[in-house]
């Protein structure tokens, strides 16, 4: 199995010491911090990628600011990530912009968390978040997918129905970590 002469390149560790932050991205996070101060937590600033974490009470306000003042105009994807050990489900919005040429490279990751219950009852338990559909129209189907796959109910979403799963699905929401694939 061993191939001693093969050009095996060891994965180079990427930039250990925190270098200076990319300028344009920093200016965006400065705007956010200037407006919301401690309400937003900037988790990382990488070239063309920013991650912002907010509490679920503030997510509407921050999203509205991102749309109106910073000009992110659509959501590329909405992802639910289950963290059973922290008893939380994180919902991640990836926002992009078509209208502002400066932002065309940027993807802003807006993350917020909902409480997670052991025995989920999607739609009727405390796993709820405000829907961003009124702010970013494009999240409509993504949030529907997130609702069925992780059981996160989006309040004020106009159409909280099943999308991909069959109508008679009666098991756990399948993207949760405690839903196991048989045989794996």
């Amino acid at each position, binding site marked *: 199995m061993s191939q001693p002469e093969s050009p*095996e390149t060891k994965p180079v560790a990427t930039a250990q010491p925190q270098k200076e932050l990319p300028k344009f991205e920093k200016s965006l996070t400065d705007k956010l911090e200037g407006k919301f101060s401690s309400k937003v937590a900037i988790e990382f600033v990488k070239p063309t990628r920013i991650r912002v974490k907010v509490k679920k009470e503030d997510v509407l306000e921050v999203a509205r600011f991102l749309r109106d003042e910073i000009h992110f105009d659509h959501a590329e994807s909405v992802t639910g990530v289950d963290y059973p050990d922290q008893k939380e489900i994180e919902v991640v919005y990836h926002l992009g912009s078509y209208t502002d040429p400066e932002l065309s490279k940027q993807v802003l990751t807006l993350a917020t968390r909902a409480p997670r219950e052991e025995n989920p009852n999607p739609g009727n338990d405390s796993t709820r978040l405000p829907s961003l559909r009124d702010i970013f129209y494009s999240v409509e189907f993504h949030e529907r997918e997130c609702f069925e796959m992780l059981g996160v109910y989006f309040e004020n979403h106009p159409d909280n129905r099943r999308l991909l*799963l069959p109508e008679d699905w009666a098991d756990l929401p399948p993207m949760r970590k405690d839903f196991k694939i048989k045989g794996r």
Partner: protein
Amino acid sequence: MTTQLPPGLQLEKLNERIMTLNVGPQHPGSGHMRLIIKVDGDYIVSCDPDPGYVHRGEEKMAEYRNYIQNIPHLERPVIHDSCNVLYPYCLGVEELLGVEVPERAQYLRVIASELNRCVYIQYWLAIYGIFLGHSTMFMWPAGDRELLIDLLEKMTGARVTHAYFVPGGIRNDVPANFEDMCLKRVNYFEKRIKEYAAIFYDNPILISRTSGAGVLSRDDAIRLGTTGSTLRASGVDFDLRKKEPYDVYGELDVHSNVLKEGDSYARSKIPWLDMLESCNIIRQALQKMPKSGSVRVKLKPNPKGGNDEVYKRVESGRGSLGCYIVSRSKPEPYRVKMSVGSFRNLICMPYLLKGEKLGNMPAVYWSLNYWPVEADR
């Protein structure tokens, strides 16, 4: 009559003016999805797309396999475009592992993904042609597609499911005479697809059927978050190969095709223009590619990413294709999300079909460049 109906079923009275039609999932005009359409006479009142018939749980499967084992199954959503589907995943894993891809591999990736884009678009064009009743437009693309499939077979070893891209480069180098063969075929292919203009795109019957059908304005295209040909047909110049160049696209001269009309005709023309552009890109890449060199960086067995996450996106045949990978220092990814163009364009369907004539449904539906299997993942 107060019997409880099973979920998903509904009763309809005979004397109601509005009639509900189920288009799909077996109807050939719908692909593997269902459109619940309400019609008033000949006009569509509302449309409710119901995807999910080919949902395979790709994202869940990805959590149980390591970064290398994920390669072959993640390309299954669109086997005709398998290089482009794997592209963001490979870029993401490379960033997680901190791997630099050799230059020759980057050029070969560009060539493979552009060839694959043409193969996908030809397949789509064949279906679009046959649903508008134009059987020549089914035969021609289906035949010309074989040229590039044979080329890709020589390059990758498989006709459609290539699994050619791996984190760290590509699986194997190309055969010795590949560059000449590729250039010859691409030149011939370009000559062939230029002939489509006379038989299809300048055909008055096609123009009368598709122009003005399902108009999506620029503002709505942005608001709905559409992508790919749907977006560019509505006058938004957004092509990731140009806006956020990945691999060596930054060194190539990429022209993104934009039309202003926003109707079905413009949406059907953009992919064809994209194929012509792909031929240009392939020729440039063949010229600039280093003639020899390594094509793959060997990874350690069972590589682990750190406590990190990446979001990478590429321009696929159906628009921007994003891959979000969350890694928790394990050989398996913690979460993989594919944000695919078809799913993002799905939201247009109820919007565009409302108020349209039922006969225009296939023209509008297929012009969205929608691939049901990809949307379901």
